[in-house]
């Protein structure tokens, strides 16, 4: 057909054919070798990488245990919370991601970068919590457009909530995120960054029971971090339920009594030593700590001169004032310095060691024995008693009755207060103790400092005629309905004779019921025994100085310690009203209302 168009020589064609065959063989052998190398020789390596690609181990946070009152009313529980996480591995354009993160979280760029920087040592796929309590609309927005921003993942997790808001805030305490420094300590090895930990109150005290056991999940996920299936799961174990001795109804009632006053109050069940109510005012809503708190909000709370974050019942330091006369009476009787027959004449003032000391009643009480001295809170009687005692004996009894040391209640960060003595004076000021100082201490002034809980323990011991209860808030801890820890009532004997307590109790009864200083606490039919205390404060040292009006600034703190009934006592309580002025007019009436409420509830009245 085309006779002249074939010019290529047979040799050339043969060469072309064989060269192309050789090239083919080389190419295919090369490719086979390459695939052999990757699929057979290095199979294990790539298999592992492929599994790494699709599997993720996710920590499942354990819900914290509940905190409930003695009647199982919930004080602290968990609610659903949406957290926004950032997965650095999936970031395409960091600038864009930061813009989005800032938009979703309403946080500034610097704040976000600081969060991310904390996780520098964690692997790229680690989920960094950017924002908790994400608004539901934001959750829907992100989830519906997940493919556009695979670097963001939404987690559904429990978060701490306090359904009664400020109620019992200082008892319950709060939780907040663990810090990096804490994570480095060995006892925190169970925690990881982003976990929460109890910071105060019951949340801190029973952290190890409340926190529960984390679970974990191995999931199969695709390239867009979308979970395809759950491979295996270890369910998280909810923390144990902490049952408190608190009676929520009484707690609320006592809190309601402090309308625009600050202070503290506590009620103890004398049969068990369990605290029925513990109030510290002002308070705060602990839930703000479970969420992300603005710096300003934190500063406002922590710098508030009224100290809302302080549990004043355990941590507030006050002069006991006349309440200390109870201990003075016990010392005098036990040391046989005085007897029920001892009398002292009060003319309104008396000279001790060259200095004139006054009674609060400047016109004088007349002739006083121990009963009327307690009834009228006569200073002159106790000055004379103090003069006949040395400070170290007083200190010994004060400690015996629970002052100068932690009460041992099951709460963290208790304050010790101060019981002065000669050794303390020498150590602190390098001076010997002057007898004149003992005169001040005898009416509860001077360097003497107490916390409300110490006075509650003291008055409870008096009520029980020397049986000192172990004060506690914990009734029991339950895990899955089974009791794992219980606080059995525990009492210790104070080495003071029962009849001496009986004398003091008679005095305290007269104080309330026979026209004494505590008369405004009296309730007909209820044998309330109590003692008022009005402790002078030096105005400028008063933490409330700036927030109070001029008249109130110089008002003394008011105490009322009491128990009822006189025989077979059921409850004891301490009420402290900061800057309350005359105790008989401010603290005692509050106590009366608490008794009424308590005994009405118990149908004992």
């Amino acid at each position, binding site marked *: *057909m*085309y006779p002249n*168009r*074939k*010019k*290529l020589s047979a040799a050339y*064609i043969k060469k*072309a*054919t064989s*060269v*192309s*065959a050789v090239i*083919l063989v080389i*190419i*295919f052998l090369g*490719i*086979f070798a*390459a*695939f*052999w190398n*990757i*699929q*057979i020789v*290095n*199979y294990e*390596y*790539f*298999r592992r*990488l*492929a*599994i790494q*690609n*699709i599997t993720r181990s996710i920590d499942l946070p354990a819900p914290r245990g509940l905190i409930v009152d003695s009647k199982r009313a919930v004080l602290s529980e968990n609610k659903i919370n949406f957290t926004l996480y950032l997965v650095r*591995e*999936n*970031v*395409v354009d960091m600038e864009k991601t930061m813009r989005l993160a800032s938009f979703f979280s309403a946080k500034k760029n610097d704040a976000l970068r600081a969060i991310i920087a904390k996780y520098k040592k964690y692997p*790229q796929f680690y989920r960094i919590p950017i924002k908790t309590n994400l608004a539901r609309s934001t959750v829907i927005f992100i989830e519906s457009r997940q493919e556009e921003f*695979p670097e963001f993942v939404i987690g559904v997790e429990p978060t701490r909530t306090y359904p009664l808001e400020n109620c019992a805030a200082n008892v319950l305490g709060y939780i907040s995120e663990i810090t990096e420094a804490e994570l480095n300590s060995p006892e925190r090895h169970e925690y990881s960054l982003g976990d929460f930990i109890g910071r105060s109150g019951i949340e801190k005290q029973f952290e190890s029971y409340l926190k529960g056991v984390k679970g974990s999940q191995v999931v*199969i*996920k*695709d*390239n*867009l971090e979308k979970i*395809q299936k759950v491979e295996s799961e270890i369910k998280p174990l909810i923390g144990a339920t902490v049952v408190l001795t608190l009676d929520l109804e009484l707690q609320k009632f006592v809190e309601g009594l402090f309308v625009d006053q600050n202070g503290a109050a506590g009620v103890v069940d004398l049969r068990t030593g369990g605290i029925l109510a513990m109030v510290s005012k002002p308070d705060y809503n602990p839930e703000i700590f479970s969420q992300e708190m603005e710096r300003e909000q934190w500063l406002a709370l922590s710098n508030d001169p009224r100290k809302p974050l302080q549990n004043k019942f355990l941590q507030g330091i006050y002069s006991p004032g006349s309440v200390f006369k109870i201990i003075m009476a016990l010392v005098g009787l036990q040391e046989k310095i005085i007897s029920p027959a001892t009398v002292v004449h009060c003319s309104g003032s008396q000279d001790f060691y060259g200095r004139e000391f006054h009674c609060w009643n400047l016109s004088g009480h007349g002739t006083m024995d121990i009963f009327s001295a307690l009834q009228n809170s006569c200073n002159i009687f106790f000055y004379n008693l103090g003069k006949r005692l040395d400070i170290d004996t007083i200190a010994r009894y004060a400690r015996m009755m629970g002052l100068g040391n932690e009460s041992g209640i099951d709460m963290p960060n208790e304050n010790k207060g101060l019981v002065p003595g000669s050794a303390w004076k020498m150590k602190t000021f390098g001076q010997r103790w002057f007898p004149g100082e003992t005169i001040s201490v005898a009416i509860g002034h001077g360097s003497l400092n107490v916390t409300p809980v110490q006075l509650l323990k003291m008055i409870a011991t008096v009520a029980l005629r020397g049986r000192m209860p172990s004060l506690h808030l914990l009734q029991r801890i339950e895990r899955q309905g089974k009791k794992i820890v219980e606080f059995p009532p525990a009492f210790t004997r104070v080495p003071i004779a029962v009849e001496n307590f009986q004398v003091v109790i008679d005095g305290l009864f007269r104080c309330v019921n026979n026209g004494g200083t505590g008369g405004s606490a009296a309730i007909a039919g209820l044998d309330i025994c109590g003692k008022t205390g009005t402790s002078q404060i030096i105005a400028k040292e008063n933490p409330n100085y700036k927030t109070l009006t001029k008249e109130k600034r110089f008002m003394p703190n008011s105490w009322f310690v009491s128990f009822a009934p006189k025989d077979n006592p059921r409850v004891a309580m301490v009420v402290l009203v900061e800057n309350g002025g005359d105790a008989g007019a401010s603290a005692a009436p509050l106590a009366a209302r608490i008794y009424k409420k308590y005994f009405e509830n118990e149908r004992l009245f």
Partner: protein
Amino acid sequence: MKDYFKYFDKLTFILLIVLALTGILLIYSAGFSLNETNYLKQAAWLLVALAVFFIVFSLKIDFVFRNASAVYLLLLFILALQILAGHISAGTKSWFRLGAVGMQFSEFIKIPLALLLAKILARYPLLDGKVFFELIALIALPVALIILQPDLGVSFILCSFIPTIILLKKVRPLILVSSLMLAMLCGLVGWNSLLKDYQKNRIISFLNPSKYKTSIGYQIIQSKIAIGSGGLSGKGYLKGSQSQYQFLPARRTDFIVSVIGEEMGFINIAILFFIFFVVFYRQFKFNFQNDEEFYFIYLFNGLILFQFLVNVTMAMGFFPVLGIPLPFVSYGGSSLLSFFVGEAIIFRIKINNYLT
């Protein structure tokens, strides 16, 4: 007619069909997790390609060679128009779409170009400078237009004609050196003016794999993981985690080898490659009646081999990811059609030898 059937290279034809059917199977797997129906489109394209195959097969070889330059010019014209339209408005480009089916005209130019080059090579026993640069110009024109499309892959594949020509013909060293320098110059100019940033990134990232998921470097890593984790017998059809959980990019086109590697393992990869080997071997070994047929077959087979090699080494991370499909297997109707047209011409050339 009986003779046609007798001398028709039935084995090679069946192997090509097997490759295309394997492709459809893999495209189905590649789109399985996302419920894509591309495999149906590809099956339709295969039917079209087979019909066109027999039409072209029935044409006289002379006729085919005679009309090569006209088709070449027509395609250049269309490519130029496409670029112009693209400049006027992005929307008008759709004018070139035939109905709902997108046509990639750049894929077709390799047929008339190979025919034209073969004709010139047959006409001149020796390649002097003038003829050599004429050949280069014929290649460079569509290459430039296709880069502007922009389609880096196809234009790169067209360049494979140059080494084939150099292997087939004696070229004076001076011409070789000067053309090499010219190519480098063109490359430099092209790099700085023609190539877009993302195209440059594709080339650079091959040298610098990255951990970021959208980068080409990450794609290469994922492709290697897919192939390597397939092992000897694979994870099972539709069961590859890399393929089904979207770790593997461009599964139905550039990285289709990785899909078979992961899901069907080394054994099936080896079978697939052996099929390719047999096809190439049979197509390189033949008798012919005139020189232009010889040159065409070498040029066109060279191109398929080159494309095969680039695609496979790309999936292994030995070559930049340029967007080059695996011949006969990867998704893409225009590519499948153009390869079957080229094969039809080869089949016709081979049969002519027996019939006359």
